[in-house]
Structures are given as C-alpha cells and as structure tokens.
C-alpha cells in the first residue's frame, strides 16, 4: 500500500538457544504511523522476539532491515541509539526517582561550568512534565514527584513520552495493559494512538484481543515460535482472533499430552 520501505522488517528470522529452537522463520514488518499487534500466549516466543527486535539477542539466521536496508544490532544500546525503544510492562524502572530525574537518566541537562556543572533540575522537570502533558496526561504537573507514586497507566505514558522525546522511531510496548484496570488501559491505548498519529512505528505485544483490536492496524498471532496468522485490520473478527489464539493453546496442550 505504501512505497516507503517499512521502518523495521524481519525476514525469516530463526532464533535458537543451543539445541532449543525458539523462533521459526519469523517475517514481520511495521510501517511508520502504524501499529503492529503481536498476539500470543505465554511461552509463544513473544519475549524472545522482542529481545531480538531490541538488540538483546542476535538472530541465529535471517535478516533485520531498517528503512529497507539490512542491519544488525550489536546490543540494546545500539538498537536504542538507532531509535528502537522498548517500554516494559511496568513502565520506568526507577520507581524511587523523581519524574524529572528518571526522565533524563544518562542524558541529564546541566548548567554551570567545569567541576561545578549542575544537574538542571528545573529544566529537566519542565521538559519531562511538558512531554507527558503533550500526550494528554495533564494530571502530572510536578516533576519532583516520585515515579512510584504514579498510577500504572501514568507510568506507561511517562515511559512512552520519554521514548518519543528522545527520538524513538520504533516503539516496542511489552504488554503495556496487562497489569492495568479497564480505565487505566484505555488511557494507555489513547497514548498508543497518539504515538501512532505522530508517525511512530509501534509494535504492541499483548494477549488481550480487545486491546489489540482497539489500536492495531496489522496483526500477527504467534504460536510456539512461529507466525500462525498475519492479517490486517478488519480482515478477521474478534471471535476469529480469539479462536486462533485459543486454538494454538489447545494444540499446544494436545501435543504436550501426547509426549
């Protein structure tokens, strides 16, 4: 549908750890301004796939392409320097740090000179608060508050706003709504839509079909390390998707029994 190459594409990715094959011939692509939903039950290989996308694991074979060109990530820092940001289930990992401080971990704005260079708390707080508010989370107005004092949805939003602020082009969201109530989850889904509107390529990992349907443009169902189904928005109904995921589960159960 589009002539621009996908921001991130996987071609026939296999990943094995020693004798154990975890991913089989995975091919996926995600365009800018598009949400790719990865659906799969626990143990389907979702987290291995995420870690491969984020540069933590190197694929055993297959190609990773960014903007149509083949590439390799040497590590998580390499991947994040190239615009791939991963936001984990609980959002930020520093619950005891203030919003402003955690927002700028490793890239603190400073003022002053030489040995008297100081962390610019005021500016850090201002930028962090503005970045989250731009995503519609107006309840956050004090950058000195601790991240741990925010609700789960707000923490997710903060982490996403942070990734966008630092120039992420691909946003990998690992089960962002799994631990949240209905209202908080709706909150995060709105943020996902906002990130998409801003032209980010979003990879949204979930096992909640409802949440996937709400934001997804493109869906892939992962069963035992392989793509079991790959379709676009509107091509399958909610029941069909649920059946697909449940079918995989049943098959996995049957196979386990036959051993």
């Amino acid at each position, binding site marked *: 549908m589009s002539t621009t190459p996908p921001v991130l594409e996987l071609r026939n990715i296999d990943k094995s750890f020693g004798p154990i094959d975890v991913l089989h011939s995975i091919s996926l692509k995600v365009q800018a301004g598009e949400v790719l939903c990865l659906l799969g039950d626990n143990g389907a290989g979702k987290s291995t796939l995420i870690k491969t996308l984020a540069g933590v694991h190197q694929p055993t074979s297959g190609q990773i392409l960014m903007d149509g060109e083949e590439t390799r990530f040497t590590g*998580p*820092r390499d991947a*994040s320097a190239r615009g791939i940001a991963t936001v984990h289930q*609980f959002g930020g*990992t*520093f*619950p*005891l*740090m203030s919003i402003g*401080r*955690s927002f*700028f*971990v*490793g*890239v*603190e704005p*400073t003022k002053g000179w030489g040995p008297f*260079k*100081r*962390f610019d708390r005021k500016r850090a707080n201002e930028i962090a608060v503005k970045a989250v508010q731009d995503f519609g989370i107006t309840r956050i107005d004090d950058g000195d508050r*601790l991240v*741990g*004092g*925010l*609700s*789960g949805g*707000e*923490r997710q939003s903060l982490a996403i706003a942070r990734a966008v602020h630092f120039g992420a082009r691909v946003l990998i969201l690992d089960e962002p709504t799994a*631990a949240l*109530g209905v209202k908080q989850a709706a909150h995060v889904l709105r943020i996902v839509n906002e990130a998409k509107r801003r032209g980010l390529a979003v990879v949204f990992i979930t096992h909640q079909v409802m949440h996937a349907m709400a934001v997804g443009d493109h869906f892939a169902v992962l069963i035992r390390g392989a793509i079991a189904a790959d379709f676009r928005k509107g091509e399958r109904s909610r029941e069909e998707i649920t059946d697909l995921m449940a079918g995989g589960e049943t098959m996995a159960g049957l196979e386990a029994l036959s051993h």
Partner: protein
Amino acid sequence: MSRFLRRPEAGAILSLLAVLALFTLGGADLGNLLGAASWVNFAANLGIVAIPVGLLMIAGEMDISIGAMIPAGSMAVAVISGHYGLSIWLGMAGALGIGVALGLVNGILTVRTSVPSLIITLGTLVAMQGLILTGAKVLTGTASVELQSPDWARQVFGQLIGGSHQVIILWWIGLAAVFWFLLHQSRFGNWIYAMGGDKVSARNAGIPVQGLTIGLFVLSATSASFVGMCQAILFNSAQVSGGMGYIFNAIVAVVVGGVLLTGGFGSVLGIVFGTLTFAVVAQGIYFTQIDRNWSNLINGAMLLVAVAMNEAFRKRAMAPLRRK
C-alpha cells in the same frame, strides 16, 4: 508538611528531635548538651565514613571493610612518619594510598564477580586486619606506634579547637558539602540513584556503572583511612585494633538517615542527621539521669523503627506497581 515527610531526611530529623525531647525529660540540660564537644567529635569521625558508605548503599552496594581501614590509615601514617621518621607527607600519602588501593580491590572484585559486596568487603575487612597486625609486628614489633607530627599537620588534621572540639568537625562539614554537591547537584548523583534503582537499566541508559561503582568504593575506603590518619595525628599514636565499631555505627547512622537498604533512595542531609542522632544517643546519654547502658537499646530500637519506616515509605512509593 506532607512534602517534608516524603523527603529522605524527614525520619532522621524527627528522630533527632524525639531523642532530644527524651533526654530533656531524662534530666539533661539542653544547653549543656548542645554545647558539649564529646558527641560532636564522635559524630564528625563517624560522619566522614558514613556519607560515602551511604552513597554506596544508595547505589545498591555495601562496604564493611571500613572497619579495618580506620586502623589501617592510622598505622600507615604512624609507621611511615613515626617509626621510620619519614616526612609526614609520605605518611599521609601512605594512609590515603592504602585507602585508594583497598577501594580499588573492593570495587573491581564487586564489578567482576557476582558475589554481593557485603561478602567481598567482609573478606577484605578480615584480610586487612591480618595485614595490619602482621605488618605492625614485622615492621615495628609492637601493636601501638608513636607519632610526632609537625605543628602544621596538627593544626590541619588533629587540632582541638577551643581545647575541646576536634578540627575533623570542619573536615566533616566540608566533605559533607562536597558529597552533597556530588549526590544532589551533579549528574553523577542521578547516576548513583539510577544504579541503585536498577543496574541493568542504568547500564542500558549509558551510565558507566562499573567505573562509578569502583569510584564509590575508593571514596569510602579512602574516607575511612583519612579518619584513621586524623586520629593518629590527634592522639600522637596508632593502634592496630579499633574501628570495628564504625561498621555498625555507620550502617545505623545511614539507615536512620533514611537510606533504603535496597538502594535507590536517600540523601546526604539525611545521613548527616542520622549521624547526629546516633551520636547524641551514644554520647549525650551521659548528660541525663538515664543509665548509659540504655544507649545501645535506644540506638537498636531506633534502627528498627527507621528500617520499618523506610520500608513503609518504599511500599507507598511502589503501591501502583503492585496493583494487578
């Protein structure tokens, strides 16, 4: 008020006020107590060690080898400048150098192995004690070494201001200001908090976790050997023993000061107030009608209350995280 209570030093300030109130009820004259030198001297010696130990704890590490580094610093300066009569400069370089060396050993072992730093520094604590004992016996033949320092060194490191207050109090204030700047104003401080929060994420954010860990161990060991050096200059002699009490005292001061044992939270001001509180309990009890044998009980109870308060704080800060 609720803003104040969320600060790491809140507990320590409240504890200090509570202890002062208790001692006033116990018959102490507050003016006498506050004017006395004994507890301020005690606090200054402890405080210089407690701050870098607290920084390590905020970064998620622990250093108990400081217990051996205090006599190591004393003996180094006394053996070099006292027993061998070499320049005090060499003695001071020796005392601080041994701190840097042990800090490097602690730090490098911590970042290169997966052994908890509590165990590593327990090992270096015991090893260093053995080294001091053997060294003193082989080099000087005694366990106590005399030291006559030049006047200027006495003025700077071992003077009694007004005949009662050790000059190390000024060093404590100065070093506390430097550590305050480091932790709360410079970007290194942010890195220390991040390390204590989550080492892997901190590393992924580009923070030189290993170098900073080693640097913090060097700071704590060197601060301890500095305190030992000042004591040798003040008392004109050094003993192989002593210093073990500092391990527990420093940990109590740091925890009462609001630093979380699990890392990631705390402040220099809190550690300073934790140290003051500990010192008032340990030394101020002589100004009351209360039997001084109670002081350890008070310190122990205070530690438990502080740990419980810190834990409650951590739970509150993490509350939304646990909502499923």
